[in-house]
């Protein structure tokens, strides 16, 4: 800290763009705060649709994060530790949703899980289960988009973790599954936690894949971002208030990440 204060001056060609960069990132958020209809915030928040959308957002983002943990942590382990062939191809495939436009993801999900889709048709015929335009579809769309964040984060943590501890565990009678549970997972827990928070935040903000695959039905598939977009068309003030709520949740997440997990991650 003190070194940054007494350190050499920042050269102007770096300082000016950096300052502009900060302004660019922060000003829109400030604008949101300035334009917020503070007098009617309480009223707006009490509107029936808001609580519903917020609850749906949090529940679906949490479910998506749990699903990502269940599938993504083992996947990260396979990418980081196993010696299977085609691992780099696998890694590339897993990270595709990171760069894919979410709306394309939504279309792809629709084609596979829709009633006419390869898997969706079978589910419909066999069990009478229809996925699109349900809350389940919201969770699936969010998981599709957010899970790669978790996988990348956990894989990085696994690569950084000293694999020799796993050798030690093996010499102490632990098979690979026991080693994973008792040694590997606890050691990368901060990385898993950080990945989960990142994943949750991404799921919470998911828009494109959700609206494509799950639609925009209040109560079942209309999450906060969808509600914001819709509100902006007919009631900009409501859109601002909803945005404020999302901003508050995001900032709270960031603080949580910093104090609760990232702080403890440093041994």
């Amino acid at each position, binding site marked *: 800290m003190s070194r940054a204060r007494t350190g050499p001056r920042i050269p102007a060609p770096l300082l000016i763009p950096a300052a502009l960069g900060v302004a660019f990132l922060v000003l829109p958020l400030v604008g949101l705060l300035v334009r917020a209809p503070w007098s009617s915030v309480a009223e707006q928040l009490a509107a029936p649709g808001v609580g519903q959308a917020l609850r749906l957002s949090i529940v679906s983002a949490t479910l998506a994060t749990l699903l990502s943990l269940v599938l993504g942590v083992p996947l990260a382990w396979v990418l980081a530790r196993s010696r299977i062939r085609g691992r780099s191809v696998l890694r590339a495939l897993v990270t595709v949703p990171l760069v894919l436009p979410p709306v394309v993801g939504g279309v792809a999900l629709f084609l596979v899980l829709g009633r006419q889709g390869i898997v969706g048709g079978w589910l419909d015929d066999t069990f009478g289960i229809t996925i699109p335009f349900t809350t389940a579809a919201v969770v699936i769309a969010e998981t599709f988009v957010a899970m790669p964040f978790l996988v990348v984060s956990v894989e990085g943590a696994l690569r950084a973790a000293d694999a*020799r501890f796993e050798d030690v*565990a*093996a*010499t*102490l*009678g632990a098979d690979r599954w*026991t080693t994973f549970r*008792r*040694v590997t997972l*606890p050691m990368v827990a901060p990385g898993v936690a950080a990945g989960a928070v990142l994943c949750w935040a991404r799921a919470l903000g998911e828009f494109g894949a959700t609206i494509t695959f799950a639609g925009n039905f209040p109560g079942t598939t209309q999450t906060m971002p969808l509600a914001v977009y819709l509100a902006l068309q007919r009631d900009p003030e409501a859109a601002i208030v909803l945005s404020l709520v999302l901003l508050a949740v995001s900032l709270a997440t960031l603080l949580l990440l910093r104090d609760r997990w990232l702080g403890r991650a440093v041994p």
Partner: protein
Amino acid sequence: MSLGARVAVRRGSLTLDVEVAVADGEVLAVLGPNGAGKSTLLRALAGLLPVDEGRVVVDGATWDDDGTHLPPHRRPLGVVFQDALLFPHLTVGENVEFGLRTRGVGRHERRTAAASWLARVGLDGLGDRRPAQLSGGQAQRAALARALVGDPSLLLLDEPLSALDARTRLVVRAELRRHLGDFAGSTVLVTHDPVDAMALADRVVVVEEGRVVQAGTPDEVNRRPRTDYVARLVGLSLLAGTGEGSTVRLDGGGTVSVAEEASGPVFAAVRPESVALYLARPEGSPRNVWPARLAGATPHGATVRCELAGEVPLVAEVTATAFAELGLAPGAEVWATVKASEVAVYRR
């Protein structure tokens, strides 16, 4: 019973092919330079590395053979690594209990066993600490307790002392010696420090470039090194030659007078402290006198180790006073003398 193993592993540029046999209660030191394949041997014995060829048999049970590979977690062994490697997310006590827990020992019994081992290694009452709160020596003691608490058939020590500072190393080495004395199974100690090997082992094998180049008791290896590496380690100058009665004709040119009769290919070993240096050729007395040039000098406590270049390359150890009185500087021409009775001769 014992460990009997032949381990052949090819990894990149290293081809390891080593045979070892260790009796119960015996400590075998595997001594060698970095990259000689010592750690590879240890990992293969532990089952962490597949053996390309060979077998590992412990107490009559085959751990490795053609088509057989017992995974590491099924081998009753204990390993102590160079950096202790205590699990950072567990307490010291939980670390020691780890092996018992994976083998299904009950909670109460685990606690008792761990506490008793912590007391044995001098860490009484530190079971609730985190590994980060231990000193290097304490961590290594805890790692030893963790390796021994399960009563393994085979104990593997991978440079267990080399991460410790000099003073701690001395203390931990003495303790380790005591624990190894009490240990009923076979022990393989990998080290590049001859002092560890001499202090802890009953037998030593020297491994260089993946092969055993010398095997014997610590005393034999110490007094009669067979390679330049070992000779340097134990601080001797090793001269290879052919015995012709009381003279050894050196392969590199020159002769050495020896007290014992020798014939055929032999080694002549000279201790640095039996080499005397003079500015002028000394007269009389039946000893070896060679001209030499001082190639380098390093202070070593109250003495100075002088590297001598010439027909007969030697290391001389002279007192700092003598070194100063001779007014020696690198490049100086000197005469080196050694009494015939001070030269050890043995078969190559």
